[in-house]
C-alpha cells in the first residue's frame, strides 16, 4: 500500500500469531460498521495463538505493558502461551477462565 505510515504503538491491539508471525490491528479498528476481530485478522485461518496487546500510551508510547489471551473466537488456553511468540513474563491471563475452572 502506498500510503502506509510507521506509527509507534499505543493503546490496545488485537493480535494473532500464525507460523511465527504476529499480526496486529487496533482493537477498535473497523471494516464498515463491524469491528475487526481475531478471525478477520487471521483471515479465517487457524492461528498459533490470539489475544490482545496493551501498549503504554501518551508519555511512553511503544512499550508493551502486558498481553492477554482475550479472544472470543479462538479462546486460546493460557497454558499454550509459548505459541504466541511474545514475552511470557508479560502475559496476564485468567480473567477469561470460567469461575468453575477457577474453583470459585
Amino acid at each position, binding site marked *: 500500500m502506498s500510503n502506509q505510515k510507521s506509527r509507534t504503538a499505543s493503546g490496545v491491539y488485537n493480535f494473532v500469531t500464525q507460523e511465527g508471525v504476529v499480526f496486529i490491528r487496533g482493537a477498535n479498528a473497523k471494516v464498515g*460498521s463491524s469491528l475487526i476481530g481475531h478471525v478477520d485478522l487471521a483471515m479465517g485461518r487457524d492461528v498459533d495463538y490470539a489475544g490482545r496487546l496493551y501498549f503504554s500510551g501518551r508519555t511512553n508510547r511503544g512499550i508493551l505493558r502486558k498481553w492477554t489471551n482475550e479472544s472470543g473466537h479462538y479462546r486460546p488456553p493460557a497454558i499454550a502461551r509459548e505459541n504466541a511468540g511474545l514475552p511470557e513474563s508479560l502475559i496476564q491471563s485468567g480473567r477469561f477462565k470460567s*469461575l*468453575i475452572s477457577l474453583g470459585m
Partner: protein
Amino acid sequence: MTSQLNLKNNSPVLMNLSEEEQFQKVCAFLEKDIIEALKLANSTLRSKKYFQDLLGRGLEVADASEIEVWLKYLVPRLGMRYVINVLEGKLIEQPQKVNKAMYWLPKFLNRTNEREMNLFKNLENKILELTVNHVTV
C-alpha cells in the same frame, strides 16, 4: 474523510429530541459505528427499556468478538443480574449466543458481589449440564 458519527457533534443535537427519537437515532448509528452508537446511547438514553432492547440486538447480531463491546456498554446500565437472567432465558433456544457472551462476562463481574458471582456460577453450571446431557444423548 471526516466521520459524521462524532459523539461530541451528535450529543447536543440529540438532547433536543424525545427519548424515543434519540433511541431511533442510536439504532441508525448502530448500522454505521457500533462503539460510537453505544457511547451515544449511554450519554443520551435514560430508560432501561431501551438498553434492554439494545442488549437483545447485541446478542442477535454480534459475533464472538463484538459481543464484548455490547456488554461493556450495556452491563453497567442494565446490571449484571439482569444480563445473566436474559442469557439464562436464551440458553435453551440460543445456546451459541449465550456461550459467546459468557466468555466475556467475567470481565465485567463485580467479584466482591456474592449474589452476582452466584448467579454467574449457576448459569455456568446450567451450561455445563446442558453440554453434558447433549453429549450423553
